[in-house]
């Protein structure tokens, strides 16, 4: 399992929603300050909901970069042989 994280550290991005929704909950569980009249907790959770896709996207982007790099390497190796 730790091997996987070492090979794909980008998987840690997937913990971002856990931090946003759960980790910091005690600090954001409040009505004020209001943001455009909205209670703070709702604004925070709404923000977390909008940021979750971004976190997943960051993992995916890094995965795609890894894949391209591996392909290039394979191709170069093949070329040399």
């Amino acid at each position, binding site marked *: 399992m730790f091997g996987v994280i070492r090979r794909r550290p980008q998987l840690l991005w997937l913990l971002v929603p*856990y931090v946003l929704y759960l980790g910091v909950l005690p600090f954001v569980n409040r009505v004020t300050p209001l943001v455009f009249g909205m*209670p703070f907790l709702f604004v925070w959770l709404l923000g977390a909901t909008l940021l979750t896709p971004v976190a997943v996207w960051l993992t*995916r982007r890094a995965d795609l970069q890894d894949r391209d790099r591996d392909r290039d390497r394979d191709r170069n190796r093949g070329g040399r042989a």
Partner: protein
Amino acid sequence: MNAVVATSVFAVFMVAAVALGLLALRGRGKGGGLAEWSVGGRSLGPVFIWVLMAGEGYTSFSYLGAAGWGYNYGAPVLYVVAYMSCGYAIGYVVGPMLWGYARRHGLVGITDMVAHRFGRPWLGAVVAVLATVFLLPYIQLQITGMGVVLSVISYGAVSLNWAYFVAFAVTTGFVVVSGLRGSAWVSVLKDVLVIATLGFLALYVPLHYFDGYGPFLDRLVTEKSDWLTLPGHGGGGSGLGELWFISTTFLNSLTVVIFPTTVAGYLGARNADALRRNAMYLPAYNVLLFVPMLLGLAALFVVPGLAGAESNLALFKLVVDSLPAWAVGVIGVAAGLSSIVPMAVFMLVIGTMWGRSVLSLVPRLAERQKSAAQVVVVVAGGLALLLTYTAPNTLVRLSLISYEGMAQLLPMVLLALVWRRLTFRGAFSGLIVGVAVVCVLVFSGNDPLGGVNAGLVALAANLAVALAVTFAGPRDPDPRPDAEVLAGDPVGDEDEPLAVTRAARGASDHRV
């Protein structure tokens, strides 16, 4: 007159839903075995997977229970948003993993994954029975949900008992024949209606009743501020504090990725990348879940004093009160389909589990898994309908028990696929202990326990027992190599057809 209009709109859309579900099979002939029916032949692209999984997650709870929670407690209901977002995110890893495992070994659900992993067909049967027990209340929940919706939007013209039957009939009407693919097609209609109606209500209700969001939010903050944070209205007495929110979200986010219906969606994917893209887009759908909660809060001002199960109708009271009959009908359809799509997948999954893992143990039925599964679908749905008539219960508690029970499968299904050392004895003893703890805590009224979700307490016990028994006992005498038993980490490989990748890899190895 109102009743006739709204009910007609509803009826037309229900017929359309069944037709759409059946049309999904057009051009595919009658053939195709269990995998075609159960997991759509593993051929659904990113769009269908998104629609289907969004459809499964957004059940009748979203229209009824969520608004009811919003009305009764307020903020605690947002745990649904939180766990679905977290769960969809880790689905980025788990989805492709389960998908790859199932495809490599020709599996169609968690029960035959377990059977394959531990090399014990009967274990699949045990898990199937257990999962069925946890899923049946869910079907019942959808039946009751749809019943309540139909009865309200028909202005009482359709009785609850008939409405329950309609839910059963419409769902069975397409899912028996067209399976997961049909569910995905109906889900398209459903998602369009859900997005449109909730989007509309989110704008319309504050405008209609409060002259806009500004005044609405002002009143909320000044008059109902205890609804706006955890533990919500009712204070500590509700047991819905921060610790409850955190533990429930954490547990459910893990459970949702192995929930049999989610897994059916995963396995239906054409390739692993469809699932990864889906994990990216799906959490955005959760924004819609804020709407029923807001409407529940709005109902506090418009229809105060709803008590007990009536609070589940908070949203529909507003709808019926403020909109013309045809619009009431359309919103009813969206809510109705939100019962039907998940219910179809629940029934489908039960059918699949029994066809593949239970009835297949009977030699005579082993060759006819698909037909057996289709019969089970009708039986399971019928049983849930019967339970609805004879043993009704309130909405949310039931689904929490289902989730907490299903969570106990986590070590056996998920941990086992990444950790070879976990022995059959360990996983099985853990499961028994976990389920026992859930039952004891929930039925003795100790959920949450000291503020913590009882399912999480049970899962901790489950895991502790599984580890202890594993390390105390001998290794499983299983000669198969790791690659045959464990699920891989297939990133990159499976985007091309398997044969090509293998050939390419073989070639490059040769060169090196």
